[in-house]
């Protein structure tokens, strides 16, 4: 079995008296698409945000391609550019064009020239089907288009891992498909992905593994076919039946 890209061990996180992650172990192999599901408040988004330490874990280990991110000496900015992240609320920079959104980190983090960054940026926008929107500001784009720009922004840095935090939850139903199509093409290109989402049809057809979380712990995990039809744990069965309906 190949070495995992992401290896999370005994990860704990509390917000005040509330323990939201109770010692999570999660390993993601190269090119794997892992789907995190569970009721709201189960800790899936927090887990995702801990993976690049946007949320600071209390304890535990996070290894990205063997490098321990919890080390004090770890260059967090260097690690973060290897981890792309896509948010529920898109979080595009409203004062910049779509191309400006994509090229900012290329120029300021990777140190590329404006010309080189724009070349890469245009290619990334083309990849998400928005080559013609390069000069538009976020306010001029639909939610689906904004989310695809956000994906281009993350993908252009050539991350080894992509984290998706409910990427379609803020979208009108008719715009969800375009974002899922982009995620599907990323998957076909061999991107390693961890996805928090309620798009169960997408989970069924695209995920390698479905991880069910509840109350800050992983209850059960397995391939989607098995999880959707013959989950071992009654809570998993109840949840997947309810949401898959």
């Amino acid at each position: 079995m190949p070495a995992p890209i992401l290896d999370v061990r005994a990860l704990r996180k509390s917000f005040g008296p509330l323990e939201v992650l109770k010692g999570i172990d999660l390993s993601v192999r190269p090119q794997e698409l892992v789907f995190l599901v569970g009721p709201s408040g189960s800790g899936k988004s927090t887990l995702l945000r801990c993976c690049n330490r946007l949320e600071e874990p209390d304890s535990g280990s996070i290894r990205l391609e063997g490098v321990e991110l919890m080390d004090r000496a770890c260059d967090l900015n260097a690690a973060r550019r290897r981890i792309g992240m896509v948010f529920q609320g898109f979080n595009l920079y409203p004062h910049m064009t779509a191309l400006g959104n994509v090229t900012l980190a290329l120029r300021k983090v990777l140190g590329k020239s404006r010309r080189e960054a724009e070349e890469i940026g245009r290619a990334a926008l083309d990849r998400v089907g928005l080559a013609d929107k390069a000069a538009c500001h976020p306010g001029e784009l639909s939610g689906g288009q904004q989310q695809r720009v956000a994906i281009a922004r993350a993908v252009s840095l050539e991350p080894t891992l992509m984290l998706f935090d409910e990427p379609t939850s803020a979208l009108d139903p008719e715009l969800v498909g375009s974002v899922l199509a982009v995620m599907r093409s990323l998957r076909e290109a061999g991107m390693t992905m961890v996805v928090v989402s309620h798009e169960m049809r997408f989970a069924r057809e695209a995920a390698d593994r479905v991880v069910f979380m509840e109350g800050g712990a992983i209850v059960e995990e397995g391939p989607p076919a098995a999880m959707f039809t013959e989950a071992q744990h009654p809570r998993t069965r109840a949840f997947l039946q309810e949401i898959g309906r």
Partner: protein
Amino acid sequence: MTDLDRFLATFLNPAVAGQYAGAIAAGVLVTIEVAVAVLVTGLALGLGLAVLRAYRIRPLNALIVIFVDVFRALPPLVVILLAYFGLPNVGVTLSAFAVLWLVLSLVLAAFAEEIVWAGILSVRKGQWDAARSTGLGFAQTLFYVVLPQAVRLAIPPLTNRAIATTKNTALGSVIGVGEIINQAQTAVAVTGNATPLLMGALAYIIVFVPVLILAGRIERRFAWRRA
């Protein structure tokens, strides 16, 4: 002499107007000089303090908050009088022009810091998340992502405050800065006629209406369609 004649002779006296037009014009120049100097240093200092505050270094932030609150609370006139008549007693003698410039700059800086800081706070946390997730550092995120948005949000209140503060250049008259009101008051004292004051008022309108129009343009220029 009718009431109207008396009114015209008092407020719109052509002879007085001709005699003191030069003095008022000289006052306009001084007012513009002080106002421009105050705008440059006050806004720069206010922006600088807001940026420093974003680093959230506790003792430093406490000092910034104290400075900001003191200079927002005190009437500028009090500070001007204290600085001009008080500082020489401790061996610091500044020209009237320097005192006016310094005090108004500090007052504008205090308000500008609060306004820009409020702008920084109102930029959504997701902007920080997105920028940091791409590997941008704290300072890079602040300068490339957060501050441009904060300043845009701050521009309408900032232009208001800038105009209000630069109009306070009139307070220079109490310490003898030869700005518009000082010139007009001198002329009134000599002639016993109110025409120079009316000329002074007109001068403010001539100076500040273009500034207001410019401020409106800046506000529109920096407005952008929000996501």
